[in-house]
């Protein structure tokens, strides 16, 4: 049983380009699909409405943790907090870390999200229930949206 998610992806772009895409709030908002209210500042909250089709009513919120230029960008947040009726602020947030490494072909991005052991299991179950059936459909929407705007 794991309490973390780990991903890595190699991008054919220089580290400086990837760093900007991650840490410039407008660029981050473009690919992450959120309309943020201002620049990322470590220790401060970043907030804005999700721009995913179908999720526009959801406010994305994170606390920026570390910004070590071209190396590490991290924030804490409440993953999957899509229910307006639930107060997620009492829950321990998870930590999202993006680590960058220069490679021959560009940049290796190592993503880790950890701390899932602190999320009440009932909510994990509800997150699934709410999206059972709807999620697959949502993914198709996102894919077609990406295809339209490469």
């Amino acid at each position: 049983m794991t309490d973390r998610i780990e991903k890595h992806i190699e991008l054919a772009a220089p580290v400086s380009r990837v760093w900007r895409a991650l840490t410039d709030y407008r660029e981050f908002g473009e690919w992450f699909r959120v309309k943020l209210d201002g620049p990322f500042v470590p220790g401060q909250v970043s907030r804005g409405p999700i721009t995913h089709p179908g999720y526009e009513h959801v406010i994305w919120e994170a606390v920026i943790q570390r910004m070590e230029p071209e190396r590490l960008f991290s924030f804490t947040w409440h993953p999957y907090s899509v229910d307006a009726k639930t107060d997620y602020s009492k829950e321990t947030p998870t930590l999202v870390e993006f680590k960058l490494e220069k490679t021959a072909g560009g940049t290796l991005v190592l993503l880790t999200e950890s701390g899932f052991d602190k999320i009440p299991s009932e909510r994990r179950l509800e997150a699934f229930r709410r999206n059972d059936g709807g999620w697959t459909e949502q993914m198709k929407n996102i894919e077609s949206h990406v295809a339209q705007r490469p």
Partner: protein
Amino acid sequence: MSHKGRSGIAGKRRAQAPVFAALGDETRLSLVAKLSVGRPCSISRLTGGSKLTRQAITKHLRVLERAGIVHAVRAGRERLFEFDPQPIEAIQTYLDLVSEQWDQALARLKSFVED
């Protein structure tokens, strides 16, 4: 996946249930492993072949019970413990979902910086 018959009390108890924490122990993991493959077991059966005392096993079972991973059932005068896969499945499903979201987000990041 069906979640019928999960009553309010069980649900509320599960709301506090630290499933990860319950599984973060070698003895409890081995108890879960034993119970997940077979029929409900008595404490004596679970204690047999273990270096631990009956009391220690009982304590571990209680942690698993609180997390909803095992349930005690009565069989005559005996108390048996049975495995409930649901909390573990729920965690896995949740992590799969978050994981899928990251795959999508990283794919968008890729096309964003490579264009």
